[in-house]
């Protein structure tokens, strides 16, 4: 049943009383069930407690040092680039390059580092179960920042950040290089957890629905409302893009090729699991500052299987209008290309024994426009 609440404009006397303005035709197009499901995408921003595994989480001084380190090439072995080179603040902390360009061109797109606090997994393959580990791996990956713990310590000792770092971490000369590496990563995490996308047009719509303000909700673009109906319904988008961040934080085969060349593949979650299960930098490991090892249940109980091969983490959609290109390999140039991908998805590319969620959507050009219009409302202008 479609709830069609006409917005009755408060019209004044004279001509206005005889001819309702265009807003009088505005409607909330969602059914009661769709409204209930829409409420699950908020409120935004969420209330997030400090990360107990990171003793610098929630510390403003650590966040300030983390911001300075994030933008400083001192974190790369050759001083050639910083975290911000790929996670560019002006592009919602992503990069326009399809694939990240570290010390070599990597296999995957640089995802935005906004809205990362308190996720279950990090990275396209879920190589980390916490934000500080996700910040640590690029520092020492040969193709990315390329430091060793020892070279990082040496670089920080000679950097203008030494005083601020020692105020937080203690005297640097006596610290084991691995401890310096972990402290650097935790300080970067303290900064990144503060990066949250601003409320978007969708949030005004959702909050109006939550408050029962139907006239207010009816001001939401009708095309975007139709797109939301597709997102919840025929598009099957909300099956994976759920919750206030529009992600279920799990891993799926989206039908994007995982062949990097004729002889190379990106194993996706399969490799991510192998990495995280051997890592000392998990919520279950010795570098966590949480004596209760909160959140460690996931890495301790996660299942492995060959169906993980070529699956990638469901990206959140907030701010997505500003983070093109898309998918794990950056192969889709814009949001319309993403919708078109799912509209004509090639099931031959899917795992034969994988999950059966996707099918070509068969949306019309107008419906694609509507779905794209909705996706754009998830980003603040």
């Amino acid at each position: 049943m479609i709830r069609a609440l006409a917005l009755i404009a408060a019209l004044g006397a004279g001509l206005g009383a005889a001819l309702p303005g265009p807003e009088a035709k505005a409607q909330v197009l969602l059914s009661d069930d769709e409204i209930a499901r829409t409420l699950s995408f908020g409120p935004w921003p969420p209330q997030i407690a400090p990360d107990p595994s990171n003793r610098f989480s929630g510390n403003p001084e650590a966040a300030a040092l983390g911001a300075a380190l994030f933008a400083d090439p001192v974190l790369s072995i050759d001083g050639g680039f910083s975290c911000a080179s790929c996670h560019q603040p002006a592009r919602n902390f992503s990069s326009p390059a399809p694939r990240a360009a570290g010390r070599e061109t990597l296999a995957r797109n640089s995802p935005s580092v906004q809205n990362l606090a308190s996720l279950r997994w990090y990275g396209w393959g879920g190589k980390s179960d916490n934000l500080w580990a996700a910040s640590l791996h690029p520092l020492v990956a040969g193709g990315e920042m390329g430091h060793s713990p020892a070279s990082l310590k040496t670089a920080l000792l000679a950097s203008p950040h030494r005083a601020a770092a020692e105020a937080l971490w203690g005297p640097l000369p006596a610290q084991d290089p691995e401890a310096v590496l972990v402290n650097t990563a935790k300080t970067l995490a303290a900064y990144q957890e503060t990066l949250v996308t601003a409320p978007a047009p969708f949030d005004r719509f959702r909050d109006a629905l939550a408050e029962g303000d139907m006239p207010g909700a009816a001001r939401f673009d009708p095309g975007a409302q139709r797109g939301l109906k597709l997102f919840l319904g025929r598009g099957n988008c909300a099956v994976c893009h759920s919750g206030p961040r529009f992600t279920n934080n799990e891993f799926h085969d989206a039908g994007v090729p995982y062949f990097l060349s004729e002889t190379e593949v990106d194993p996706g979650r399969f490799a991510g699991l192998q990495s995280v299960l051997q890592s000392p930098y998990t919520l279950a490991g010795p570098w966590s500052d949480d004596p209760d090892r909160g959140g460690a249940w996931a890495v301790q109980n996660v299942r492995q299987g060959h169906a993980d091969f070529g699956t990638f983490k469901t990206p959140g959609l907030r701010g997505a209008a500003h983070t093109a290109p898309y998918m794990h390999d950056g192969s889709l140039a814009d949001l319309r290309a993403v919708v078109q991908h799912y509209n004509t998805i090639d099931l031959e590319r899917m795992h034969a024994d994988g999950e059966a969620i996707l099918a070509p959507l068969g949306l019309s050009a107008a419906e694609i426009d509507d779905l794209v219009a909705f996706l754009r409302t998830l980003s603040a202008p």
Partner: protein
Amino acid sequence: MIRAAILWTALGGAAMACDGPGTAMVPAASAADSAPEVRLAYGDIPLSVPFAMTVTICAPAPGATIAIDAIMPAHMHGMNYSPQITDIGEGRFEVQNMVFHMPGLWEIQLELRLDDRDDQPLSYFQEVSLP
């Protein structure tokens, strides 16, 4: 939090009933006449967040063990995490780390091994629809 709509079929035959919390699981047809009632209790099921359940075996069951899992039949996949089962005595088990990471119809599957029927486990099912 999302309220789960529980779909279940009432047990027939000679199954033993009890006043344990929750609702009765559906035994597999092959064991329906002799299987003790098994009840499953849980609160609201949040989407993609761990939740816990309590299993009650409605019969004297010293030494009984259970295995539990869940699948989405329409999607041909199960859960991404192994649930943890703790025997809390008197035929009751606490199950933790259940995670339904997608909305839709889930089927909870339970296998019960009783001491005196250790050749074949008894199978039970319960459907849960997550909006």
